[in-house]
């Protein structure tokens, strides 16, 4: 009898441990996808070494990717959308603060050289947004999207201001459709023209994005893509002859496409990748590859991918070469959560 009682008492901890073990084991069966949390780029080692130097953003922090490793640059703050000056010596980036965002000039180490705009105000309606900065090919002007005038809702127009000047010298370049979100992603061209993305709403009230060309400030803009294509996030190749873009064709997935660009018109696009969540393509410094963002698996956090291109000669000298993918895309980063709305700045 005593022996059985002792055995029973000794067995109680075993039962307790087993019950706890079941509880803990069930906890390990939770979805790994949901549990997956991103890490900062500096805590990772890229799986592929990209040529040159690239600047990317995660959680409002600027990172430099060089020689296969990340380093964080820049002061604290909510940074996004870095872009390089044509001589590759400085950056212009956006910093959000409260209810506004401003453009800053930084050196390549992330030190602020100059605040270019002042868009914050104590009165909420007088705050402004500045996004998508790009420097003109001659390095003289910064072109960006700015939510002014605000007479008909809050829509972004493309503006230009001297890089070494003041915001008061800024002038508006485009006239957006009101209540659509407006014009974004400007690319200033060497001849003075401008590429940008304009949003519109068709009679069935579906929202569209199209890439436009405009020869000069406030001139009539010419659409280069159709409403049905829903193209945006254009990136011009270093030699200015090809345009990479993301086209959703009205779906919740997109195609990564490249089309020859004559300076004022687009040739027939070639689909490089289709059916994915592709974002913010950027050309390699030699123009032979693209980098872009896309989610890794089901976790959803956007990673950096690299896609080498092969140039196929075309018989017609008047049409630029048509690129086709030489191989499958290569995943560069793993486990990070890069900002898909901040295109990589790459030189």
């Amino acid at each position, binding site marked *: 009898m005593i022996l059985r009682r002792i055995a029973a008492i000794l067995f109680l901890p075993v039962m307790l441990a087993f*019950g706890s073990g079941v509880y803990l084991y069930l906890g390990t069966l939770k979805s790994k996808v949901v549990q997956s949390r991103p890490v900062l780029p500096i805590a990772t080692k890229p799986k592929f070494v990209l040529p040159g130097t690239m600047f990317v953003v995660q959680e409002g922090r600027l990172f430099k990717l060089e020689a296969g490793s990340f380093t964080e640059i820049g002061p604290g703050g909510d940074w996004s959308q870095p872009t390089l000056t044509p001589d590759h010596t400085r950056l212009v980036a956006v910093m959000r603060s409260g209810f*506004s965002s401003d453009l800053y000039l930084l050196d390549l180490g992330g030190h602020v050289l100059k605040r270019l705009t002042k868009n914050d105000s104590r009165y909420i309606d007088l705050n402004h947004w500045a*996004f998508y900065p790009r420097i003109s090919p001659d390095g003289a002007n910064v072109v960006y999207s700015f939510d002014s005038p605000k007479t008909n809702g809050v*829509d972004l127009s493309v503006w230009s201001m001297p890089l070494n000047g003041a915001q008061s010298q800024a002038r508006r370049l485009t006239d957006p459709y009101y209540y659509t979100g407006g014009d974004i992603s400007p690319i200033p061209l060497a001849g003075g023209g401008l590429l940008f993305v304009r949003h519109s709403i068709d009679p069935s009230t579906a929202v569209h994005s199209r890439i436009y060309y405009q020869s000069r400030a406030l001139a009539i803009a010419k659409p280069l893509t159709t409403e049905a294509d829903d193209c945006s996030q254009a990136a011009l190749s270093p030699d200015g002859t090809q345009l990479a873009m993301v086209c959703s064709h009205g779906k919740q997935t*997109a195609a990564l496409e490249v089309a020859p660009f004559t300076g004022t018109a687009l040739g027939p696009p070639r689909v490089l990748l289709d059916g994915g969540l592709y974002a913010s393509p950027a050309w390699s410094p030699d123009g032979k590859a693209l980098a872009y963002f896309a989610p890794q698996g089901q976790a959803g956090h956007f990673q950096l991918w690299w896609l080498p291109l092969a140039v196929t000669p075309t018989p017609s000298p008047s049409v630029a070469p048509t690129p086709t993918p030489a191989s499958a895309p290569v995943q560069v980063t793993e486990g990070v959560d890069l900002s898909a709305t901040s295109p990589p700045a790459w030189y």
Partner: protein
Amino acid sequence: MTGQGPARRRRASRLHPVRVAVLTLFCLVLSGTAGAAAYFFPVVVAGVGQTGQTVVVPPSRSPGVQATPAPSAAPGTPFTVLLLGSDDDGKNQSPLTQSMILIRVEPATKHVTMLSIPRDLWVPLSTGGSAKIDAAYAYGGAAAAIATVERNFHVHIDEYAWVGLKGLIKLIDRLGGVDLLVTNPVLDDAYPDDIDTKFLYGYKRVAVLPGFQHLDGSHALQYVRSRHNDINGDFGRSARQQQVLLAIKAKASTLNVADLPDIVDTLKGNFKTSMGLDRIRNLLGVATAFDLANVKQVVLYACPSGCYTSYDHGAAYGGQSVVIPHWSMVLAVTKANFP
């Protein structure tokens, strides 16, 4: 001596190895069950407190329209859920529904149809009088919302589910965020600043930039809630709400039963439904199996001509900006999609 023999034999038989093994196994099963019960205890509590909410839908006063008390659909047959989303920030004791989406689920074919109902639609309420349809929930809770939709749209609703805004934020964060395509810049200078703040009537500026991206809960809420700078107003917002709902579904398909306690904990106090645990389990089964290609999205749009509804405002509507339904067009759409 003769009396000790049988007693020793009885003792020996009680300690037989088979009996010991059976007893040990029983104890282990018991302790394992206790461990599992402890793990799923929050689910059981929520199952009792938040699911199977009883609603008594008042009988229809409109001829030819039958309002049936929910739930009524048999397992495996198509059923319709009214999804309600509303403020739960304490601004109103009875919150308005910011989102009303009719969802028809066909388990056999794994087809899902979603119809967004504009919140500003001017309709007769089941509780009496006319008002914007978003007031039905405020005046009479889920029963009034169901009855109002049933009477005006001539559909039968089997179940309802209500989610508060904070619950939506927490759910998306618990899922690790959602991926979606923001079609155009969503800029709003008068976005309600009423989440986790003492002053509930403030406004703030928000900007959600376009493109494919990963959104956390608060940014996803900004995307689905903003409407002041959208030329489509609440109709555009309805389309974005369906988009986020599908993104949540895509992410939720990676969940398994072990995630339930966390999800239940996340939605505590921010979720109510008439569905019982059995129906929820069936719904989750459909959700993990159906393909996005089998989802039909329907949004009632406003435009000057040839559309389902039109804007109006004035003294007749208490000075409110309302949407006047063209019922012949609306009912044609609902009849086609919600037979």
